[in-house]
Every structure is written in structure tokens, then in C-alpha cells.
């Protein structure tokens, strides 16, 4: 029989652990590591991944700093995906795509700023010296 306080303490500790672990799933290299060591083939591990889906609920999701992990978690529910992760080329591809996606908004912002600069340069062709100061 565990007293209420001890149970709470253990539960809090477990919360921290699971918070860390679920976010580690955002790292494709870590996924490759897990796959190559056969963890993704073990039934208890697969059940654990399904249990971790509770992090999708808003009251838990607000603690996640790396939300990419939720997408990875969803994909990990599929056996096909788990099988593919053994392949290092596959996880490298995922890594590349993930980083490109990560840069998407930055690129978009840069493009918008460039477009803005060009527009202003068109409006003020007589004052080229001011054109450079608009870029932040």
C-alpha cells in the first residue's frame, strides 16, 4: 500500500520522465537508434507508444517545447513506419525534411522582407542611399 504523498511524488517523477522521453521522439536520429536496437519491435514498447498519445491532449500538450514530437508519435503508431526507421537513409531523409520544414517560416519571412525592399526601391528610385536601411 503506497501512501498518497509517495504516489504523487512517483507520479510527478514519471511525468518528468515521460515529458522528456516523448520529446526525444522528435529526433529522427534517436528514432533510428531505437529501431536498430530492436525496441520498436517489442510489443510492450509499442503499447507504451500508444499510451504516450495522451500528450496530444491540450492540458498535457502545453508542456511540450518541441511539438514535432507529436507528429512523430502519431507516425510511430504505424508498424510500417516503425519498420522503415531501421534504415539510416530513411531517418536521414526525415531529418533533412524536418530541418527544411523548420526553416520554412524563416525563408518566407526573408522573402517577404526582400519583396518589401524591392517595392520600396521601386517607389523611391531617386534615393538609393535610403534603400539599404530598410532591411532589418
Amino acid at each position, binding site marked *: 500500500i503506497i501512501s498518497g504523498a509517495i504516489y*504523487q511524488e512517483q*507520479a*510527478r*517523477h*514519471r*511525468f*518528468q*520522465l*515521460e*515529458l*522528456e*522521453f516523448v*520529446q*526525444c521522439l*522528435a*529526433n*529522427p*536520429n*534517436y528514432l533510428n*537508434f531505437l529501431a536498430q536496437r530492436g525496441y520498436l519491435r517489442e*510489443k*510492450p*514498447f509499442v*503499447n*507504451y507508444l*500508444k*499510451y504516450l498519445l*495522451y500528450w496530444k491532449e*491540450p*492540458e*498535457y500538450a*502545453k*508542456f*511540450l*517545447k*518541441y*511539438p*514535432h*514530437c507529436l507528429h512523430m508519435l502519431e*507516425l510511430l*503508431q*504505424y*508498424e*510500417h*513506419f516503425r*519498420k*522503415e526507421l531501421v*534504415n539510416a*537513409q*530513411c531517418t536521414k*531523409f526525415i531529418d533533412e525534411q*524536418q*530541418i527544411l520544414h*523548420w*526553416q*520554412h*517560416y*524563416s525563408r518566407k*519571412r*526573408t522573402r517577404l522582407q526582400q519583396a518589401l525592399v524591392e517595392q520600396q526601391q521601386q517607389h523611391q528610385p531617386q534615393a538609393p542611399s535610403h534603400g539599404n536601411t530598410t532591411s532589418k
Partner: protein
Amino acid sequence: MLMRFISHACALRKRGQTVMAAAEKPTKGKLLAALDDIEVLSRELIEMLALSRTQKLPQPGEDTEILELLVQRDKEFQELMQTAVEQGKVHQEMQALEKEVEKRDSDIQQLQKQLKEAEHILATAVYQAKEKLKYIEKARKGSISSEELIKYAHRISASNAVCAPLNWVPGDPRRPYPTDLEMRSGILGNMSNMSTNGVNGHLPGDALAAGRLPDILTPQYPWQSADVSMGILPPHHGSDFGLEPPGHNKENEDDVEAMSTDSSSSSSDSD
């Protein structure tokens, strides 16, 4: 001789009647038969009267016989006419009632149609109302204050977790996921030595040997801590994950098919 013919004809008809005793002879038939008899008898009488002018009656009393038969037939005929009239009245009543029945039938069918239509409309309305309630419940469940959303958005953006830093170039170690350095510095990393081969090309011994990562004093990164004073706990679970959890497994192969088409060496046929 003629009398014998007449009585013979009557006997035949009566026999015919007994043969058809099961089916009642229609009144029309009876009337026509009676008329035939009267016709025959009256013709005979007239012939006899015509003959009696020139010659004597072959059989005395035959004329009275014929007369009696004639009167009898006439009486029969009158009775039959009366019956016919009554039957006609009854028939008319029957027809009126039939019309009435038809009208009632069509009324009932009309009501039936309307009832069916009303039932259909009500069923649709109830179904749509239920759907609406379902969506209302769903929306209510998922409602989050905008302030909280903005706070969260700020948190994940400011740390460059979902949007790359503007000055990022290839070679920058920052990533949209926890790097192995960060992973090892948390509770998980300190609990057990999970990597023996090294992840991302780093061996665990390197960092330690270089003195850059003292185990105990590593700082905790923000992604590893949560404000647990809010009292949130993970959902309860049995300690044994070896047991099959309730619910179905998502073995939907089709969804994930598209992902692996670009990885060249992976085999496309499943085991």
C-alpha cells in the same frame, strides 16, 4: 300432344334446377324461363281457340288446364318481378356502400402517406439535432483561451523549436528536436546509460572525458522541466505494458505508404 310437350319441358327445367341446386338460379334466368313458359302457353291457348272454331277439342278440359297453367305462371312471374325489384334495391345499396368503402380506403391511404412523410421529417430533424449536439460538445471540449494559445505559441517560437533562427546556416548545431547533448542532460540521460555506440557521431565518453559534461551538475534545459506545482500528473497505467491495451491497432498501411517511396533501399513488400 302439345300438353305433353309442355309438361315435358317443365319437367326438364325442374330437373335442370335440381342439378344446379348448389348454385342458385339467377333471378334473370328464372324470369326469362317464366316468360318463355307464358309465351308457349299463351300461344297454345290461342291456337286451341283458333282450332276450336273449326273442329272439336280432342281432349276436353285441356283449355282449362292451359288456362290454369297460364294463371299459375303469371303469378310466378309477378312474384319473380317483385323479387327482382327488391334485389335491385339491395344491389344499389351495395354499390353505395362499396363507394363509401372505397372513399374510406383512399382516406386511410392518404393519412398513411402523410404519417410516413411526417415520420421521415421528424427522424431527419432529430438526427440533425443529435449531430449538432455532438459537434457542440466536441467544440466545447476543445475550447482553449486565446491567451493561453498565444502564450504557448510564444514559448515554442521564441526558443526556435518550430521556426529556425534567422541566422541559421548548415553547421549550426541547433535543431527542432532535442539533440543528444540535451537528451543526456536530463533525468532520462542520467538514469541509465542508453547509448553505447553514440548518437549523431558523438560518443558518450568524449564529452565526459573533455570535461564538458559533468554528470550531476548539468543544467536542465527548459524542455525537460514542467511547472509541476500545477499538480498535473500523467494518466494512470498498469505497470505492465506487455499486455495488449484496449482498442484496435492502427495497422493502416495505406496512409504510411507515401512516406517510404523516396527511401531507395527499403523494400516495398511487407513481411
